[in-house]
Structures are given as structure tokens and as C-alpha cells.
């Protein structure tokens, strides 16, 4: 036990304090030292140039040290030479990370290419910084490696293009994606709601502001102008404060049917964009319009008025759920009138 402990301590000691000064550990220590100095410089209020220079030194020493260390220790999972990839990642983080803002995309997309460059430089440049021509076998290997890193880079670009699509058309992800030959939705993830639900809520607010608490005859007049109301809903959708490209693919519509002494008002958000199923789908919000007698306030009780038939006012209530139905509301209305 003690022997094993002593051996481990000795190994750790040689790992942390290598016998030679010209070693990868020293380069890593230089990196840490550079970082520390740049931090110190920032604390002492040194110029931005000094701090940046020291931090850059830290990054470059980190890349060199990591690459050297991985190469020297022969860390090769699955026979893959890891060193160029790690060095490439550190360099990309250094170059693009200092940009700030949306640095992740350019950093990831250029990572395979930078790694290829790191892998190729020892074959193309000699120690005294002169160009050298590698043997044909190495040239062939470099060509294959270059093309492979290009392919990896295009895959990453495609990934970011997919994210851009989802950002522009968020309702696409609310559909079933299992037919796709390109993307694989990882099972067990929460499926987002289509944006149509938000549009329906907005439409409900608009209708409510126009109908609730209005005299019943004016409500009936409002209902007569169905086409005009439809256009008003569409205009509200088009003039949203934060428009998305997919707004053009949503159609808002409404349908009225008799229900008891009032009406049932259905608000529909029809998706006209790409969908997983034939004939697309629509979301439905059912609302009830009822005539109710005017609430009588105690002060204005007047015998003469009370004798008259009570004035009717509209009450407007909507269901909370918005069921998703296949097809188009115009065809569905014929199916179940």
C-alpha cells in the first residue's frame, strides 16, 4: 500500500515537474503564468494592449502545450490522432472567442479546417521554416484529410442552417419529424407549441375588445360582417410588433353558428406551410357569445326602466384549449355541420 502510494507520488511529481525544462508541462505553466500576468495587468489597470498581448500569449501557449502533451503521451483513442483537433479547437476559441457576440458558429465551422491546418503544417514546413514537399503517400493522406475536414465543416454549416430555419419558422418543430431523411428528433424531448396558439390568443383579445359588454344588437351587426372581421384579424397578425417570416404562413379565420339563444364563434389559425401530414392542419378556439341582461346597479334603479324589457348585453367566453385538427376548417365544416 505504502509502496503503491510512494510510486504514485513519484509519478505525479515527474508529471508535474518534468526532468527537462524543454517540455510540454513547462509550456502549460507558461500559459498559466501568462494568464495570471494578464489578470494582474487588468487589476492594476494596465493598457488594453498589454492585457490582450498577455492573454494571447496564454492562449497560444495553451494550444502548444496541449498539442505537445497529447502528442508526447500518444493519446490516440480509436487510432485517431487527437492533437490537431484539440489544438484547432483552442485556436478557434482564441481567434473567434475574442470577437464576442455570435462567435460559436464561425468557430465551430472553421474548427475542422483549422485542425487540418495544424495537422498539415509539420508535413509542409520544415523546422527551419522552409517549405518542403512531402512524399506522394503523405500528399494523398493530406488530400483525404483535407476533404474529410471540409465535409465535417459543411455538416456543421448545415446544422446551423437548420437552426436558422427553426428560428424563422418555429412552428415547423411542433410537427412530427420522424419521416425526415435528414434530421433525427431525439425522443423524450418536449415538443414546442405551434405559434398559431399565440396568434389565436391575440385574435381572441381583439374580438373580446370589440364585443364584450356591447349591446346585443351591435354584436349581431358585427357578426354579419364576417369577411370584414376576418380581414381585421389578418391585419392584426401582419402588423405584429415582432414579425416572424412564418407569420405569412398562418391564416386566421372565423366561423359563426347558432347555439341556444346565442352564438358559437370559432376562431381558426390555419397553417399553410410545410407540414408532416397531407392536407396540413389548423388550430381551433371555440368561443361562446351570450346575451345577458344588464347588471342593475342599485343607484340607477328606476321603476319606469325596470318595467321595460331588460336591455341585453353580450358576454364573451372562450375555451382555453386549442385543439389541433387535420385539414382545413372549410372542409371540416361540411363534414360535421
Amino acid at each position: 500500500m505504502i509502496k503503491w502510494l510512494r510510486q504514485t507520488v513519484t509519478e505525479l511529481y515527474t508529471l508535474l515537474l518534468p526532468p527537462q525544462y524543454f517540455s510540454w508541462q513547462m509550456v502549460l505553466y507558461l500559459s498559466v503564468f501568462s494568464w495570471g500576468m494578464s489578470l494582474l495587468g487588468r487589476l492594476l489597470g494596465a493598457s488594453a494592449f498589454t492585457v490582450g498581448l498577455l492573454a494571447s500569449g496564454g492562449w497560444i501557449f495553451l494550444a502548444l502545450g496541449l498539442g505537445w502533451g497529447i502528442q508526447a503521451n500518444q493519446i490516440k483513442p480509436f487510432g485517431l490522432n487527437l492533437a490537431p483537433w484539440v489544438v484547432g479547437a483552442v485556436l478557434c476559441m482564441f481567434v473567434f472567442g475574442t470577437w464576442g457576440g455570435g462567435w460559436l458558429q464561425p468557430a465551430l465551422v472553421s474548427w475542422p479546417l483549422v485542425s487540418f491546418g495544424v495537422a498539415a503544417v509539420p508535413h509542409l514546413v520544415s523546422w527551419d521554416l522552409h517549405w518542403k514537399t512531402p512524399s506522394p503517400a503523405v500528399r494523398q493522406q493530406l488530400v483525404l484529410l483535407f476533404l474529410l475536414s471540409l465535409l465535417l465543416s459543411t455538416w456543421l454549416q448545415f446544422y446551423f442552417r437548420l437552426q436558422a430555419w427553426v428560428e424563422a419558422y418555429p412552428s415547423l418543430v411542433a410537427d412530427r419529424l420522424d419521416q425526415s431523411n435528414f434530421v433525427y428528433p431525439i425522443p423524450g424531448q418536449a415538443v414546442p407549441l405551434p405559434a398559431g396558439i399565440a396568434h389565436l390568443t391575440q385574435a381572441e383579445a381583439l374580438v373580446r375588445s370589440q364585443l364584450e359588454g356591447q349591446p346585443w344588437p351591435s354584436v349581431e351587426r358585427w357578426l354579419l360582417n364576417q369577411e370584414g372581421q376576418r380581414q381585421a384579424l389578418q391585419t392584426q397578425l401582419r402588423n405584429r410588433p415582432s414579425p416572424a417570416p412564418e407569420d405569412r404562413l398562418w391564416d386566421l379565420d372565423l366561423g359563426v353558428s347558432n347555439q341556444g339563444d346565442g352564438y358559437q364563434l370559432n376562431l381558426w389559425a390555419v397553417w399553410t406551410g410545410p407540414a408532416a401530414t397531407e392536407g396540413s392542419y389548423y388550430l381551433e378556439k371555440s368561443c361562446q357569445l351570450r346575451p345577458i341582461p344588464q347588471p342593475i346597479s342599485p343607484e340607477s334603479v328606476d321603476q319606469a326602466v325596470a318595467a321595460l324589457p331588460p336591455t341585453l348585453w353580450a358576454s364573451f367566453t372562450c375555451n382555453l384549449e386549442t385543439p389541433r385538427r387535420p385539414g382545413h376548417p372549410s372542409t371540416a365544416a361540411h363534414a360535421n355541420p
Partner: protein
Amino acid sequence: MFLTNLLPDLGLMPLRAIAFQTMLLMLATSLEAMVLRQRLRLGYQTSIRYSASMNLLATTLGWFTFLTLERLLPVELRQQVISYILFNRFYPNGWSDRLPVVMVVTAIGAFFLTYWVKLQGLRSLMVLLGLQPSPATASGDRQGRYRAARNQTASSQPSLTLAVLQANALSFTAMLLVLLIRLVA
């Protein structure tokens, strides 16, 4: 816990595209290596390397073309492309009637473009590997260059052209078959 938080942040990942592409690339590479080996009398490893380089080049250029074109297409056509990629089907809009024609033209165009890219790629690769001295460096004067070009045309070029054409046709047929099987299954 970290993974469950990470996955939704990553969003849609083109995992199927990567898997399919890897499979199709291996299929095409092995088929084309067979043709190159027979036609050009190359060794096993050499033909595999050549064919892999050719196919990787064509694939990456194809991706670049797609990614660039997708930016430039009219919005309605872009939406059809998105529909095909996410749902494997087109949806009715203004382009629906023209889509079959567009598809066929694209497929035929892709065939000839990949053929051209593969041929040029293979030629450049051979020059790069020093197997065929390029006509320009072989001899400075006009006459010599002409003779070199003529010699090349007479001896090695037609077999190379034909071999790449045949290889491309074979791999395209195989990929079409795989896609059809996928469509039926």
C-alpha cells in the same frame, strides 16, 4: 442532468443526414473503386484512395452548392426545400406544379456536374501525386506541350474519362436504388 439540459439547447441535429451520407459515401467509394481498379489497372488501396478522394470532393462541393443556392432561391422554393428536408414531402404552394420538372433537371444536372468534378478531381490528384507530369511543366515550348497533350489524349485520357463516367453512373444507380428502397420501406 447536464445532458438533459444540453439536448434541447442543441435543437435539431442532422443526425440522419450524417448517417445516410456516411453510408452512401462508403457504398459509392467501394463501387467506384471496383470500376477504377478494373479499368485503370490500379491496386486495391490506390483505387480506394482515389475513389474516396473523388467522392469526398464531389460531396463537399455538392454541400457548398446546396448551402449557397438555398440562400439565393425564392422564398416559396426555399420553403419547399425545407419541407422536403424536415418532412420528406412537398406541400402545396405556388411551386407545386413545377417541382417534378425542377427535381428531374436537378438530378440530371447533379449527375453531370459530379461527373465533371470527379474527373477534374482525379486528374488534379494524379498531377499532385506526381503520377502524370502536367503538360505545362513537362516541356516549355509550344510544340512539346502539344505533343504531350496529344500523347496524353491518345493513351491515358480516354480510359480515365470512361472509367470515371462508368464509376459515376454505377454509384448514382446504386444510390438511386437505396433511396427507392428507403421510399418503399
